[in-house]
């Protein structure tokens, strides 16, 4: 197998023509073959995404509007977190190249140092992707609203903060007159989806009823994403009517007039396939990053124990480096076609 000179096989059995094809080792060639096949798999997924998107052009969400949050900082930072993730992955690719270069000089300490940096970068990326998923699943403050004519719209504008709930009717945990100040948005969202908000009165989990005291929203507008009886995809409903139409749905008492976030069936951002492609493509890619990190850790253990140094070359680092660069390459394309364009 690749890596070190074999003492058992004679050269006529190994390579009939005396030299190996392309003057490269078996292992490296096979890694390239694997990478081409995996590249075709990802390309197939991205092309399928392209097809679905072009078939639903007007209803498809705009990348910089869906992804505009930073951890701990809230929203208003279009595409910044995804750009940071791209930067982290590119830098981890660079540390990998540096590890390979150190291997070519038989510099064991250098290889160890750069390989550890690559592994850390990889973990940061997977962690960031996990945060992105969690944020996507959780959803925005407004969610997506179904209007009276059956059309669906996303909401733009600034959500006025909920100040408190004032309990009007007692339930199992709250007495009349209690003022609740914790977990407000969370309870509000749950209640809206369940149809438990009517005329500004929310029915809480314990059965008590409370008045919602909320600051006014401003700059609201609705953008239609699914055709209904009167409104068509692409229509924009201005502030004058948007607020009333949105709160009509919120206060209707009918469940699921407003939905938040994403689940296996629907998402608040656009057509069903949007969520499905998001989870599948980024998930499949994230799985590749994760497996790459595990492989890097295993190889790191080999470097530390001196296996490759004894062998006389660090070609194994080069081969895992190829896999790691491939993972970065796929991300560059996913970033462009999913988030940017």
């Amino acid at each position, binding site marked *: 197998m690749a890596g070190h000179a074999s003492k058992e096989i004679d050269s006529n059995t190994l390579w009939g023509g005396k*030299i190996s094809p392309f003057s490269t080792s078996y292992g490296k060639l096979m890694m390239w073959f694997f990478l081409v096949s995996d590249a075709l798999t990802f390309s197939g997924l991205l092309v399928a995404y392209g097809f679905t998107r072009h*078939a639903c052009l007007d209803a498809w969400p705009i990348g910089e509007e869906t992804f505009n949050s930073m951890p701990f900082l809230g929203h208003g930072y279009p595409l910044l977190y995804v750009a940071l993730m791209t930067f982290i992955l590119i830098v981890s690719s*660079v540390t990998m190249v540096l590890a390979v*270069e150190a291997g070519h*000089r038989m510099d064991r300490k250098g290889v160890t140092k750069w390989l550890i940096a690559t592994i850390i970068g990889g973990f940061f990326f997977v962690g960031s992707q996990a945060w992105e998923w969690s944020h996507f699943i959780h959803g925005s403050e407004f969610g997506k609203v179904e209007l009276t004519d059956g059309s669906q719209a996303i909401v733009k504008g600034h959500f006025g903060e909920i100040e408190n709930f004032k309990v009007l009717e007692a339930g199992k945990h709250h007495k009349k007159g209690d003022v609740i100040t914790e977990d407000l948005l969370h309870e509000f969202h749950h209640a809206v989806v369940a149809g438990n908000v009517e005329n500004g009165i929310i029915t809480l989990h314990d059965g008590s009823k409370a008045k919602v005291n909320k600051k006014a929203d401003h700059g609201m507008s609705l953008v239609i994403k699914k*055709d209904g009886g009167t409104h068509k995809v692409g229509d924009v409903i201005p502030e004058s009517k948007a607020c009333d139409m949105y709160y009509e749905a919120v206060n209707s008492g009918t469940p699921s007039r407003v939905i938040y976030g994403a689940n296996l069936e629907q998402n608040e951002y656009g057509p069903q396939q949007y969520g499905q492609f998001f989870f599948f493509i980024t998930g499949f890619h994230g799985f590749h990053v994760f497996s790459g990190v595990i492989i890097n850790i295993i190889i790191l253990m080999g470097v530390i124990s001196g296996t490759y140094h004894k062998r006389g070359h660090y*070609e194994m680092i080069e081969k895992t480096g190829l896999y790691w*660069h491939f993972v970065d390459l796929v991300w560059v394309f996913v970033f462009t076609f999913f988030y940017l*364009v």
Partner: protein
Amino acid sequence: MERDDIIEYSLDVHHSEEHGKLLRKKIWKVTALLTAITALEVILGSQIKQSSDYWQVIKWLFIGLTLIKAAYIVLIFMHLGDEKKTLKYMVLVPYFIFISYLIYIIIVEALAVSDAWTQNAV
């Protein structure tokens, strides 16, 4: 027993510390280039909205820049540019032929489907 008939290509790539310095400089230069391109893409992406007149230009610029980034990663980071020409072509040419054709077919179909759906929509 020493084998004298096996060519250990893995050992051919070893280089000295001085040569290593030059290589590292090149690696950092390419890193700076990739970072700059990504930064440009993000700034343009967040400033120029999809509704603007320039969107088509920007969109194709993104795709072009991404292909440039990909070329640098494959040829320099993955060392495909240093391999034998035949290997380079063997990896890249079939891939590009397949993918270009696939993209063309898919976009044509998707636009046809989109037209059909919007015409049939009530």
